[in-house]
């Protein structure tokens, strides 16, 4: 019998086989458990409740109503010529009308405290793409971005995978509510230096994910001063800006630039998206707003690799330009999120669980360190697994957010109905009571 000569397997790239996409972490493993046994009020009341997905479903009805009423305008029913102009030959510039709409929406969220020029708006298919694109432009493979911890687990993939850029953490802790300090910034920078890694910028998320809190104005000023002295970039991911419970508590880096008469603004870039504030992640709408002309031009060309369909731009453009609608939406959305937050925090407090004081976002930063056997990552993961498999709640462990203090968890409250939230809170209460009894 002839021996088969095995054909050498045709190889793939390092990127294709690397694990930097991070989809093996607990953050994603919890989602798997949910997918296998999802909670349903009637059909599966003992299933896993998904509290690890930062999605905003509290204001769907407002959107639904608007889109259904205005579906004619959204499609090309009456404006057949509109199709020809807009759909054909989609430029990476995007529709001017849509860029204008995005700029004005961003202004409205900041209550006019900052102005946005539509010509600086670059469209991308989601904030994920926007962050990756900026990283490609601002840094070379092997360079680093400084990112405050804890941070969104997706950054490990979005900022590092294809770009080959490193993330060097800026360590924050609970002693000052996880706010960034000049010392922490300096320490992170020195850390990168000692590793012979060139730092190209700082990337902050404001309001923060997973903290669910806005960055203080004074802290923003300090960060801006730091990047200016070090002559590096600042990327401010403001995708939760429309989800701040009280608009006056949010300061965008754009406002600070305006107060400084745009001096030295070429190092600043803002990322925004409609996925969180409008609850439309399926639409894949993100933007980069840069004060740097070269970055805008390069980002536009690069956005060929992450376009938003003209149809989607058409669909949303008129909605976002309708200032009466957006004003009303933003106000209602803030209110409903605040109510959810208060319900969540109240329920947790009753169960004896403390949270970080938050004022934004779709989640709470919850302190479960009293439940840990040891103040270690392993103990944290043990608690996480217990909550996932016994309490049937998928929450995100702080370690997947690179938090330096074990015991913190991100718990989402906006991606479910109020009833489901109540069920989840009850489960937490019973779990905590059980623990009290067993620990005596």
């Amino acid at each position, binding site marked *: 019998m002839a021996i088969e000569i095995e*054909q*050498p397997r*045709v190889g*793939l*790239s*390092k*990127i*294709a086989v690397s694990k930097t*996409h991070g989809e093996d972490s607990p953050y994603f493993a919890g989602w798997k458990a949910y997918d296998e046994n999802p909670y349903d009020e009637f059909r599966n009341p003992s299933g896993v409740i998904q509290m690890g997905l930062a999605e905003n*479903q509290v204001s*769907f009805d407002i959107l*639904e109503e608007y*889109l*259904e009423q205005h*579906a004619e305008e*959204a*499609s*090309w*029913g009456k404006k*057949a010529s509109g199709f*020809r102009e807009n*759909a*054909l030959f*989609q*430029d*990476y510039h995007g529709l*001017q009308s849509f860029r204008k709409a995005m700029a004005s929406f961003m202004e409205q969220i900041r209550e006019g405290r900052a102005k*946005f*020029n539509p*010509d*600086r708006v670059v469209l991308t*298919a*989601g904030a994920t793409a926007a962050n990756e694109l900026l990283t*490609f432009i*601002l*840094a070379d493979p092997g*360079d680093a971005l400084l990112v405050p911890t804890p941070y969104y687990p997706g950054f490990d993939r*979005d900022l590092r995978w*294809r770009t080959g850029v490193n993330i060097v953490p800026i360590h924050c802790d609970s002693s000052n509510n996880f706010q960034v300090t000049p010392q922490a910034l300096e320490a992170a920078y020195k850390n990168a230096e000692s590793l012979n890694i060139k730092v190209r910028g700082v990337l902050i998320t404001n309001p923060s994910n997973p903290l669910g809190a806005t960055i203080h104005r004074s802290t923003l000023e300090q960060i801006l001063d730091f990047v200016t002295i070090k*002559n590096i970039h600042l990327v401010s991911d403001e995708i939760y800006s429309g989800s701040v419970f009280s608009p006056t508590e949010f300061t965008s880096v754009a406002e600070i630039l305006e107060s400084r008469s*745009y*001096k*030295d603004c*070429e*190092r600043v870039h803002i990322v925004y998206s409609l996925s969180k504030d409008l*609850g439309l992640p*399926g*639409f*894949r709408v993100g933007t980069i707003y840069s004060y740097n002309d*070269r970055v*805008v*031009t*390069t980002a536009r*060309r690069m956005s060929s*690799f992450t376009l938003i*369909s*003209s*149809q*989607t731009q058409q*669909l949303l453009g008129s909605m976002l330009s309708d200032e009466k609608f957006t004003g009303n939406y933003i106000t209602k959305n803030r209110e409903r999120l605040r109510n959810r937050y208060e319900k969540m925090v109240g329920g947790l407090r009753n169960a004896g669980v403390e949270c970080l004081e938050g004022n934004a976002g779709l989640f709470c930063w919850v302190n479960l360190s009293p439940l840990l056997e040891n103040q270690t990552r392993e103990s944290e993961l043990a608690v996480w697994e217990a909550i996932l498999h016994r309490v049937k709640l998928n929450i995100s462990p702080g370690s997947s957010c690179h938090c330096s203090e074990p015991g913190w968890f991100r718990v989402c409250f906006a991606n479910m109905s109020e009833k489901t939230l109540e069920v989840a809170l009850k489960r937490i209460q019973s779990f905590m009571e059980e623990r009290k009894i067993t620990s005596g």
Partner: protein
Amino acid sequence: MTHTRTQTQPRTPQSDADTTSTTSGGRATTAMRVIVPLQGVVQGRGGLVLGSVIPCALFYFLQFYLKRHRPGPTPTTPPSTPPEAAEVSSPPLHRVQSRSIVSPRGRPQWTPMMRKIIQMVFFQLGLAENLLCVDLVQDWLAANAKNSIVGRDLSISGIATYHPSEGLMELKLAVAGFMSRVMERSTSFNPSQIILTAGAAVAIEMLSFCLADAGNAFLVPSPYSPDLDRDVKWRTGVEIIPVPCRSTDGFSLSTTALDRAFTQAKKRGLRVRGIIISNPSNPVGNLLNRETLYRLLDFATEKNIHIISNEILAGSTHGSEEFVSLAEIIDSEDLDRNRVHIIYGLSKDLSLPGFGMGVIYSFNENVLAASKKLTRFASISAPTQRLLIAMLSDTNFVDKFIKTNRERLHRICSEFVAGLKQLGIECAKSSGGFYCWADMRGLIRSYSEKGELELWDKLLNVAKINVTPGSSCHCIEPGWFQCCFTMLTEKDIPVVMERIAKVSETCKSHS
């Protein structure tokens, strides 16, 4: 290293005898050059008064419009002093420079209104977009768009929430069916081997990222589409090694040339990871026959490399030649399918460029897995997916569209090619795509890239026709030009030919 040719932007031509404008700015002079010929056109019909008033009115309108809608970013407030630190205001230089790929076919940065005005006198033959059947799509959308996105059965929450980033299964099914129909049912496509992306450029770049490391290379038969330089090389750091095809071979690919290119690459220390072909080919428009495809597969197997077949124009074949997809060859062969990947998309075959829909069709599980994860960065928005599902499932519409598109393509191609022939300009055999590959070697003053670009400049500024010169497609023989005819109507063809004739006369008289 591949010689990336940089072309001058068409927008600020250096000299032109016609202009009488003294206004400042390259844009104004360009506008003037546009208006002057218009004067001639109008004068023929409306007399002197109209002939002067209309162009002047248009000119002022255009000026006004240009001022208000200047393309390109303007700073919110200009910085008081130019930034000293070069570091920040210039992002990593070597990367940015390699990113300033400029070609005369570069995307026009004009607004739709400007485009309308320019189009009145300016013929864009450098853009491979198909307007021939736009009426069919428009009609379908008018009748169906509203209900297909948000209808009785579809709520916003159904399309708003997170979706699998590589595309809804329903859409994959619809796309698999469409691909099969377009290729005249010669082969069927498995939906689970499909990854959907927000455009064909994305699909090509994604495969580039998955199959090669920075510093590796792909072999690409030349001439090839200028877009490939960006899609394959820009962010990936992967090289393209052109494999020259010659007019004497009808621009078909020879295995000898492939082999030679592969060996040369090896000598230079470049690791070749795959071959990228386009079928129908761009810019020439020929189809690869079975024999060539078999030989390619053998070559790839022997060297243990990948093959990527860009079949994005499969539905735009219009000759009598048979289109054979690489997928069909695979069906009948017993070989390692892990090296075969097909690119497709809807923008060309369905006249929907604005929609951005690309397809990776692969037989390699690992490539599918990696690509799936990469679609996070470029997935198609949900309402667009819904619309496409509805459109592709309307098989009556699809069949009618494919048939009509082919008929219209065939007609306009024949007329265009015949028109050129009358001027003494022959075209390479074209059986697919929106363009023809025209032999203008007889018109260029010197048989060189310089001569070719001089002719291109004349065609642009005198004849007001934008075509793509062979040098930006990396053609080794100067004098060939790609002319796209799908943005023309039959009435436009005589006008275009007349203009080319004028230029051709001046070229001949100079030689």
